[in-house]
């Protein structure tokens, strides 16, 4: 990061360009731009459309009447002119007839075209595209499934065009893909474009965060630059085509993305949006979502081009359009059964049982000898009765009805011996038994409905709880980060304060050291002044000897004196104060002598102080500076470690978040699996229930028939049968 160089000059800001464009007859030389009319804002100022590197203005040429988009650069881009030349000549090679749609827009790089302040800067003069951005097109058209699906395919064709010519755009996103009125795409903003002639130059941008692989770095610049973003955009368009409601569910009204954002790529496990797409019932959507999830953690040069995935799907489409209904039925999503269902459906079909046949006889057939006998008994008994009545032999012994009753009893016996009755009864009881075994279908259905409703309520709650749990986790993560940041800032401020205080500390240390050095010097000087050799006024050798005996030999041995009042005698004496603070009486030292001693000492002190050192030696100074430097180094290291510790805490919090998210996802997957099993179980119950209810109806009607048959085998019918055989 050296000093400013010519190639890194500061560019004007967007507002500076807007100001210059108030006078296009002054700022431009170019014949078509000079005096061009800029589109204005409501305030009457040139209206910008700004990106990260430039502001674009709409200018209408007074000479040609044509409208241009003029791009004014706000940041230095290395090798800009060379890049645009290479891009321009590569795009010029494209044959419009070979392109899927007229997506490329003409542009002209004009060096030194605009003057701002006292300098001139380049602009890019581009055709004005009458088209809307992909995101606003989706706002208006997302409900039109056919149009969105067609746009997805057009996008895929566009990426194919780019790949065929070894071009990569570098920043495919909702703002750089425009949709024209005929629903074909236009590609704008070629600043970061890769063409083969630029190989080795390096990229100038890293693309929009909500479209790029987490692994895209500064050095990535090659033909595979767009791969991740093409998958992201294709997935989004196909998903919206499959279910337009996803646009309102996953896209935020003013979000700078389609259906997925950066976070969905960096931590797919915690992403509710990606989960929605991964579990989408349309298998093309879930498949593409799975692809994006996988690609998010692969290095850029490992990513497959979008075109690799699509041919298969194209082939399917052809099959659908121009072959028989049979192959169409086999294609996914056109009425064929999902594979996981085939087993279940087939077995359900084979389980249907034959309808119960009512095999019970409803009339008597084939008379037996017993029947013949019964048939004979009736006329005989009738004759007997008639005879008995005629002979008057009646009555008391057996009434005239007796023979008839006997015949009747015999008939009953005969009928009872007929197998038809037993058969009917057996059939009927068989049916009743089977009916008893089947649950009442009405009750069973009510129970199933109740169980289902209960389960659905629980599921609704669970699925609603899941994102809540996730956001709770995220919120606590954010809270944690906030705390970490606050702690970090507090620690830094404390340390900053300590570091800032170091120079004051150094000053203090220097002063203290100097004072220490000075007092040591004075003490040393005083210690050399023997009282005996250089006696103060009034102190003779005798007194000096006494003083020496008491430990006071030099001026350094005492610090002063104290007067002592003796109240008894109203006399005043003196005590010498030793350098250790102790006070002593020395015979012969009264107040006067003490004052003399003290004055002598003061004089010596003053003399010593006058010659005491006034500065520290370089060595002393250096040792103090070293001490301070050590402290500074330690504090600075601490300062760095604060950041490192914060980073560690953040990593830990991130890890906890990821663990929590992974746990939630695991639980959710498990619960989802359980729910799926439960729902399957419900479906199985419903199928059984349907079968049972049909069976129940069949059985009931069979039982009714059997009962009717049973009723038809009456005594009267039997009697008729006896004589008619029918």
């Amino acid at each position, binding site marked *: 990061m050296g000093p400013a160089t010519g190639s890194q000059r500061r560019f004007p800001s967007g507002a500076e360009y807007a100001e210059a464009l108030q006078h296009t007859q002054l700022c431009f030389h170019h014949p078509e731009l000079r005096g061009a009319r800029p589109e204005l804002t409501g305030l009457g100022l040139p209206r910008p459309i700004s990106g990260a590197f430039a502001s674009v203005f709409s200018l209408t040429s007074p000479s040609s009447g044509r409208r241009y988009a003029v791009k004014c650069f706000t940041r230095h881009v290395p090798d800009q002119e060379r890049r645009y030349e290479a891009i321009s000549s590569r795009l010029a090679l494209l044959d419009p007839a070979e392109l899927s749609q007229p997506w490329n827009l003409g542009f002209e790089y004009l060096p030194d075209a605009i003057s701002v302040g006292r300098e001139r800067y380049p602009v890019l003069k581009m055709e004005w595209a009458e088209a809307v951005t992909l995101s606003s097109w989706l706002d208006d058209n997302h409900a039109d499934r056919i149009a969105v699906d067609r746009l997805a395919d057009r996008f895929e064709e566009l990426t194919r065009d780019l790949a065929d010519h070894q071009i990569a755009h570098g920043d495919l996103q909702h703002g750089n893909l425009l949709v024209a009125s005929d629903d074909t795409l236009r590609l704008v903003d070629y600043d970061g474009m890769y063409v083969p002639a630029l190989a080795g130059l390096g990229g100038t941008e890293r693309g929009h965060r909500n479209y790029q692989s987490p692994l895209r770095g500064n050095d990535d610049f090659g033909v595979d630059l767009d791969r991740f973003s093409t998958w992201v955009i294709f997935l989004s368009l196909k998903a919206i085509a499959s279910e337009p409601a996803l646009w309102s569910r996953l896209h935020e009204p003013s979000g700078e993305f389609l259906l997925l954002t950066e976070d969905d790529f960096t931590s797919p496990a915690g992403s509710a949006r990606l989960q929605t797409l991964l579990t989408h019932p349309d298998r093309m959507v879930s498949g593409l979502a799975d692809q994006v999830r996988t690609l998010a953690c692969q290095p850029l040069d490992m990513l497959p081009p979008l075109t690799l995935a699509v041919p298969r799907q194209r082939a399917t489409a052809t099959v659908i359009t121009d072959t028989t209904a049979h192959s169409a039925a086999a294609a996914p999503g056109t009425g064929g059964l999902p594979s996981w269902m085939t087993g279940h459906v087939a077995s359900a079909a084979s389980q249907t049982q034959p309808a119960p046949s009512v095999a019970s006889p409803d009339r008597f057939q084939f008379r037996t000898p017993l029947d013949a006998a019964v048939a004979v008994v009736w006329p005989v008994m009738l004759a007997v009765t008639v005879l008995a009545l005629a002979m008057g032999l009646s009555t008391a012994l057996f009434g005239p009805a007796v023979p008839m009753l006997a015949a009747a009893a015999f008939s009953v016996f005969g009928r009872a011996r007929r197998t038809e009755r037993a058969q009917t009864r057996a059939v009927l009881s068989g049916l009743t038994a089977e009916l008893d075994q089947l649950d009442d279908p009405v009750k069973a259905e009510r129970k199933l409905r109740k169980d289902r409703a209960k389960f659905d309520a629980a599921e609704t709650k669970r699925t609603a709880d899941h994102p809540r749990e996730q956001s709770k986790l995220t919120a606590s993560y954010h809270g944690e980060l906030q705390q970490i940041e606050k702690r970090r800032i507090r620690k830094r401020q404390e340390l*900053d304060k300590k570091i800032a205080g170091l120079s004051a500390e150094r000053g203090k240390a220097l002063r203290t050291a100097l004072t220490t050095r000075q007092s040591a010097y004075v003490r040393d000087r005083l210690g050399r002044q023997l009282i005996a050799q250089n006696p103060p006024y009034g102190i003779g050798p005798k007194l000096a000897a006494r003083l020496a005996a008491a430990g006071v030999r030099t001026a350094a041995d005492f610090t002063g004196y104290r007067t002592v009042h003796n109240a008894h005698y109203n006399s005043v004496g003196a005590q010498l104060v030793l350098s250790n603070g102790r006070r002593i009486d020395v015979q012969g030292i009264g107040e006067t002598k003490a004052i003399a001693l003290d004055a002598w000492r003061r004089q010596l002190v003053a003399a010593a102080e006058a010659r005491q050192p006034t500065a520290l030696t370089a060595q002393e100074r250096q040792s103090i500076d070293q001490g301070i430097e050590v402290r500074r180094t330690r504090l600075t290291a601490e300062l760095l470690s604060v950041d490192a510790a914060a980073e560690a805490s953040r990593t830990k919090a991130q890890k906890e978040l990821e663990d929590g998210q992974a746990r939630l996802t695991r639980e959710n997957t498990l619960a989802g699996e359980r729910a799926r099993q439960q729902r399957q179980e419900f479906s199985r119950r419903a199928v059984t229930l349907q079968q049972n209810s049909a069976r129940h109806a069949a059985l009931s009607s069979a039982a009714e028939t059997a009962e009717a048959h049973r009723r038809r085998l009456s005594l009267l019918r039997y009697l008729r049968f006896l004589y008619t055989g029918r």
Partner: protein
Amino acid sequence: MPYTAEISRSNPTSIIFLVDQSTSMSDPIGGEVPQQKADVVADAINRLLTELSVKCAKEEGVRDYFHVAVIGYGATVGSALAGPLEGRDLVPLSEVADNPARIDERSKKVSDGAGGLVETAVNFPLWMDPVAHGGTPMNRALQYAEGLVAGWTERYPAGFPPIVINLTDGESTDGDPTAAADAVTSHATADGAALLFNLHVSAAGGTPTAFPDSADTLPDSYARTLFGMSSPLPSHMRSYAASQGQRVSETTRGFVYNADITTVVQFLDIGTRATELR
């Protein structure tokens, strides 16, 4: 990594300008034609607001990537916006862009393309007028900002943290502002602590400096205090400053001494990301 959150309409951030309006701001300041400090500062604010509006202008108009407050401090502390936005503190940027107090015509010398200069009139939108009256209650101003910052971090706990930009001649009259500044930057979102940048407009001389990494070359204790209060530049901002040819290091701070502060708007990343310089 802190300071990497996306600035978007659903996750906007706030920029709070604090403008010194004390009597001392009526003092003249250097240059060939001396200007009042208050004029310099009001001009900087108006240009910053224009710059922000242009940066966030898209096809359909200005997007609310930012909410902006302009707080003056002098005889009183409160919103310094004039015109339709008078009295408001945090205002969505689209409203700011559409509602300047007025549009002034200013004369400006521009190149005539033939090596000469020609004087023309340019339209210049204004949101606030220069004021110089009263003391310099910088502590109170910072406390006001702290209130706005605290509310914002609570509302958008995951977003890019608020940015407070203080424009002053440095002489606080209600005590050392360091503690109040620390209180502002003690608020944080999950993406990082609030940022405090300072523009020091001073007649004390010395070299004009933008985004220095040490206080050594600063001429007086006011400048050094303001440098000490300023947040270190987050890494992507450092990278941008470096791409403009400035010498930056780990300790580069958001402090500008007698120089243009409007470049700070270019430091804010929206949408497509630039490659970082190494």
